[in-house]
Each structure stands twice: as C-alpha cells, then as structure tokens.
C-alpha cells in the first residue's frame, strides 16, 4: 500500500503542474460560485425570469466550452494515439491543419449541444431560440473565441508537448468567473473588472441578458465582442505558427510520440 502511495506521491512531488492542478479546481469553483452567490444576495429581484436567463447563459457558455475543448481534443487525440508525427510529416500546410480543426470542432460542438438545446424546452419550458436572430451572432462570437482558446492551447501542446495537457482542461474554467456568464460585470472587484473588459465574453453575456430582459439588441456590445475576437484570433494564429517554428528548433515534434 505504501509503495502504491509512494508511486503517486513521487509523481505529484516532482511535478509543479500537478500540484497547481490540485489547487486550481477548488479555487476556481469557489471564486465562481462566490460571485454568483454575491450577485443573488444583492440583486435578488434583478431577474424576473431567472431560470431562463441562467439556462440560456449556461448553454451559451457550453458553446464556448465545447468548441474550445473540441479543438484541443483533436490535437490531444493525435498525441494520445501517437499519431502526432504522422500528421506533421503529411504534406499539409499549417493553415490547412487549422481550417480542418476549426470545421471538425464546429461539427463536434453541434453534435454535443443540439440535444441539450432540444431538451431544455420540454424539461424547463425554455428555448435558446428565444434570442432570435442575434443568437447566430452570439453563437459565432463564442465559437470564434472558443477556437481562439483552442489555438492558444494547441500552440502550447506543439511547443511544450503533452505536459501542457492540463492547461488545455483548465484554461476555460479560469475564464468562467471573469467572463461574467451568470452575473453583470459590476459584481466583480474593480481589478477583475479591468481584466474582464478585455474579454469578449463579458460583452456577449451582457448582451444575452439584455436581449432576454429588455427585448432589444445593443449592437455596440456585439461590435466590442467581435473586435476583441479579431485581435485574439489573429494573435492565436500567429502564436500557433510561432510555436510550430520553435518546436522545429527544440525538437518537440519528433519526440511527441515517444
């Protein structure tokens, strides 16, 4: 028994990312639910249709989550199956790899989400389609940001190898408290508000609540979200190319399967 304990203890002791991983999840959960609780204790009469708004926001957040995870999973599956090197010795341009991952991630996202969206109507009498045509703009904006996060993580996987895997899982949860998914920006402490304003999520979810509560579309929010998306996506693509170059210098690509 002690031997088995040691086997895992040595593993944790020798790996800072594993220790951080253990600390990370409870911390993020507590922060997220802390802000949600704070919001409801202060603004208990804010929503007339609390369930509808929360569920709609949860589904929209899942679009982000699924698209990013789908993108990362496509890369991770190649690493786990030791097929990574085969992929990079095939005559594929990096842009072809990125585009095929983007399309596949979209299909995976839709496969995962459509049943959930359909179920909310008979179970809770709520439909995300109540958002109307702006839903398409919100969906696209979340999808672009999800793909962008996927690009950041994939760049890390290319550059640093499988040890970057934990970041792939945890990156999205870091954004959950800052993205103001279930509460308005004002609920965050001032310093966090400054960071949150740099994320397209704040504008997307603010606009979702605005449409559901006030029944009109504030295109300024959507414009802000798309502008930020453009900046992050451009940076993400650049980072992916840069990581590939660095991996070719450092030798990560050839060692990935070993």
């Amino acid at each position: 028994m002690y031997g088995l304990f040691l086997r895992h203890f040595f593993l944790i002791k020798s790996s800072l990312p594993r220790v951080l991983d253990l600390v990370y999840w409870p911390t993020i959960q507590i922060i997220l639910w802390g802000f949600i609780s704070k919001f409801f204790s202060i603004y208990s009469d804010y929503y007339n249709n609390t369930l509808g708004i929360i569920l709609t926001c949860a589904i929209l957040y899942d679009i982000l989550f699924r698209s990013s995870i789908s993108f990362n999973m496509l890369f991770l599956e190649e690493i786990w199956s030791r097929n990574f090197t085969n992929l990079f010795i095939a005559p594929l341009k990096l842009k072809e790899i990125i585009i095929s991952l983007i399309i596949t991630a979209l299909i995976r996202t839709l496969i995962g989400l459509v049943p959930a969206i359909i179920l909310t109507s008979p179970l809770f009498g709520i439909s995300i389609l109540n958002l109307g045509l702006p839903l398409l703009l919100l969906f696209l904006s979340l999808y672009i940001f999800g793909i962008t996060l996927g690009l950041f993580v994939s760049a890390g996987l290319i550059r640093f190898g499988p040890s970057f895997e934990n970041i792939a899982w945890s990156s999205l949860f870091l954004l959950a408290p800052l993205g103001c998914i279930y509460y308005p920006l004002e609920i965050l402490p001032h310093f966090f508000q400054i960071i949150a304003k740099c994320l397209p999520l704040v504008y997307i979810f603010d606009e979702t609540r605005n449409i559901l509560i006030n029944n009109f579309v504030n295109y300024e929010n959507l414009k802000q979200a798309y502008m930020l998306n453009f900046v992050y996506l451009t940076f993400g693509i650049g980072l992916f190319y840069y990581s590939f170059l660095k991996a070719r210098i450092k030798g990560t690509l050839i060692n990935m399967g070993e």
Partner: protein
Amino acid sequence: MQTPLEVINLSKVFDNKDAVKNISFKINQNEIIGILGPNGCGKTTTIGMILGLLKPTKGKVLVKGMEVENERVNLLEYLNFISPYIELPKKLTVKQNLEVYARLYDVKNIKSKIDYLIDKLRLNEIINKITGELSSGQKNRVSLAKSIINDPVVLLLDEPTASLDPETGDFVRSFIEEYQRERGTSILLASHNMSEVERLCSSVFMMNKGVIIDQGKPKELIKKHGRKNMEEVFLKLTREKL
C-alpha cells in the same frame, strides 16, 4: 535526373550540444542506404531534419534538388516514414486509416491503391479490424502500408522490424526488397539489426556522437575492419574513442 535525397553539411545543436555535426551523404534512385549507430548517436535527429520536423542549425537537406527548409510541405509528398515510436489512430479500422492517409497524401485512385496495399501486405483479414486491437506484427504491416501509400521517392525506415517475430521480420524485409525493386524507391534504413542491414543495404554509414565515423558497402567495411560480420564492425567502431 535530380538526386532523390542529398544531405549537405547538416548540423543540429540542442542546448549547446551537437546532436548532429556536419554530416553529408546522398541516396541515389533504387538504392537502400543504412544509417547505423548506437542509441543517441543522431540517427533520429537526422531523419527529423530530412522530414522537416526539425530545423537544421546548419547545412541543408535536398529532396529532388529542392531544399526542405524552403519547400517543406511540397516536398513532403515525395517522402514517407515508418517508426516503431509512431502509430496510426488506434480507434479507426485499418481501412479507415489507409483512406485518411490516402487523402492526406492526395492519392489519386484511393480504392485501387488500398486494394494494392491489401494484396501486397496481406491485409485482407485485418482490413476491417480496429487498428488498436491488432498484434504488433499486424500493426507493423499497416504502418508499412501507410508509409508507401503515396509511392514515396524517398522512404525513411526507422527500425522497421523492431520487436517483430522472425517470420514477420522476414516478411517485412522481403517486402521492402521487392517493393524497392519494383518501384525504384530510395530508402534510408535506420536499424540495429545488422543482418538486416547486410541483407538490404547497398551502402551504410556509421554514426557516433553526431558524426559519421565510417561509411561504405557492408562487405567492404567487414573486410576493412577485419571482422566477420557487420555486428562486429558495429561493436568495434562504436567502442572506439572518438
């Protein structure tokens, strides 16, 4: 006609250590060249640079006269590679895997190509099986099929018979010989199996600590070093101090 593969003054430095130091060689059409040496001697690094997976610190790799660093993606359609350290997606069937790679390599007539591979590599009984459920010998034949799916001009084989039973190993060696005769492919073979090297390679070069320490035809090297076979030549050369 352009030389299929030419390596000129190639070097790779990792963290101020020379992994490969100023090596040069070329492979003509219809030729199998062996690259030999102990673990960590620079074989995989050399193959990595040929495939464009590694950026050389110095020197260049030419495939059909064009430099890999400038034309990496275009030249990859002339190359292919097999190694025991890389595998095909485990959850796909053999046929699905071959179809995926046929498309990645833009193979024109996919069905007839897969039929050819099924026939040549005795894949008919496993073609619809899940790749991850195959024995190591079967997986090896599937990987070999993937490695020739694009009829590569240069085929890089990294220990193609490692961990195979003698019968399967012999089948693979016979297949390589036959395929090379039939297609005129240039092959770079990295192997620790010296009898395999003697059987397949028209010429070999020995590496140690990133440099080529000797090269020539296997029989000439055996004679030159006064040994009985390539295994003894290998041991003599790798045990000598550089």
